[in-house]
């Protein structure tokens, strides 16, 4: 009994220490953003939100790109995930393994050929160049295949017997049962697009068109205080999405592996 309480206390302390390690940098950034030139000042916040329009405009640009990527990838992955999970066709496992390998490769490997190809398609220096490759990333299909695989086959068979076509099965049976998986796929692809750095530098020509994350990372603003406030601005949508979808996300990653 004593051993158990000691263990509980140690693990509790460990958990508290971990929470501090994970949260402390955020709090530091938040507190430092109010500290400008040696005193508490709201001037950087004024500058970023009301003083100049370039920060907010970049924010909306990033948001638009990320939403397009998130929703687009969701659409493509739902179809593909269901196909991989429930349909049998030759080469299914091989194709899936190939997609997984493509997913693991770092961006640098395909950056240059992509640049050449996008140039030939005439899409360079435009936002579709950023959006399209990310829509077809295999990440969402990977997650959704696992979560769709957990649907019992009997339900689908019964629905087919009732005369439902695949679109109906998808919309009314598969998706409502797997909201966590859908949310997880959407969030992860949104995050990928929100934080992308290499692609805009390669595909977009000038600084004016960079989304916020890249502009901030590649050319830090000269004032440290503004840099900090911009970091807060960049974290804001992610925090909201995580707070709103907290339950689904944790469950979704969970479901991704329950076979």
């Amino acid at each position, binding site marked *: 009994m004593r051993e158990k309480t000691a263990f509980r206390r140690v693990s509790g302390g460990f958990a508290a220490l971990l929470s501090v390690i994970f949260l402390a940098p955020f709090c530091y950034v938040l507190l430092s953003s109010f500290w400008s030139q040696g005193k508490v000042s709201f001037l950087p916040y004024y500058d970023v939100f009301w003083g100049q329009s370039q920060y907010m405009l970049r924010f909306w640009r990033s948001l638009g790109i990320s939403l397009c990527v998130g929703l687009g990838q969701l659409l493509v992955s739902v179809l593909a995930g269901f*196909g991989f999970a429930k349909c049998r066709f030759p080469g299914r496992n091989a194709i899936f393994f190939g997609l*997984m390998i493509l997913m693991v490769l770092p961006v640098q490997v395909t950056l240059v050929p992509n640049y050449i190809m996008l140039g030939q398609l005439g899409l360079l220096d435009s936002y579709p160049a950023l959006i399209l490759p990310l829509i077809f990333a295999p990440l969402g299909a990977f997650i959704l295949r696992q979560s769709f695989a957990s649907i019992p086959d009997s339900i689908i068979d019964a629905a087919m017997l009732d005369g439902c076509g695949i679109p109906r099965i998808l919309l009314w049976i598969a998706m409502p049962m797997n909201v966590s998986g859908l949310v997880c796929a959407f969030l992860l692809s949104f995050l990928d697009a929100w934080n992308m750095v290499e692609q805009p530098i390669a595909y977009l020509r000038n600084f004016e068109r960079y989304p916020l994350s890249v502009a901030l990372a590649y050319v830090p603003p000269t004032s440290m205080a503004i840099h900090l406030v911009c*970091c807060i601005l960049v*974290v804001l949508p992610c925090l909201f999405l995580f707070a709103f979808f907290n339950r689904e996300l944790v469950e979704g*990653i969970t479901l991704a592996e329950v076979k």
Partner: protein
Amino acid sequence: MRKKSSGCILIAPLVLGCLVFYLAPFLLVLRFSFSAGSGKSIRLVGLENYQRILRNESFMLAFGNSLKFFAVGLPLIMVFAYLIALLMQKQADRHKLLKSVFLFPYIMPVAGTVLLVDLLFSEAGLLNSLLGALGLPAGDWLAGPSAFWVTIGLYLWKNAGYAVILLLAGLITIPTEQYESADLDGANTWQRFFYITTPQMWYSVFFALVFSVINGFKCFREIFLIGGQEPGDEIYMLQHFINNSFESMNYASLSVSSILLLAVILIFFGLFYGFVERKEAYRA
């Protein structure tokens, strides 16, 4: 159902897109790796590029560094995440807040992490002032061997939470009755871990590994933004090499390094996936 045609139609958008944006570029890379010259004078030269690059010092340094990074980082992150997940296994309900906090470092933007590393580890940073207050010598943490450990630390901080959640998910599915009956049989913690936990966790471990590798490659962004195009010898990664080849228009070495990287990933994941599948088939 499960007709071939419906399956093919469903996966068509993704596969087509992947073909256009991932596979076709990759085939281009493959072709570049077998050719030399640029512009109009491209010609196939077989394996000459491969031979040349294996003798290139920067490439061997970059490749070695990347391998070292993953050889050190992957076990560390798996052990770290596994320990945390095991600790949380019994008390997952008590630490609901901690479950959400794990992912906070993951959503921190690249600009933020770069700023943090700068604030903490630069010469005028927090760590040096702390050491100075304690009377210990300050050091340049962003150069030399310590840079490698700073990178590993950054990788762990940012991505451990992700792996923890993946592992925790697998741990939760293990029914508690197995542990209880093992306790009745007089098993200690090690035996419980090896005979009950481990066999059922291979799939979760595989998943955690896959995502940790993906996240490890993404660490390049921070290294690039802190160290620039030519960082110190300790953290000169394969992606730096690829980047610099791009800058110097050396498509051949770029492609060859990509192919070699792919080969290593294929071998590693192929083996591990086969291993996991065998264990799962054994279990079922």
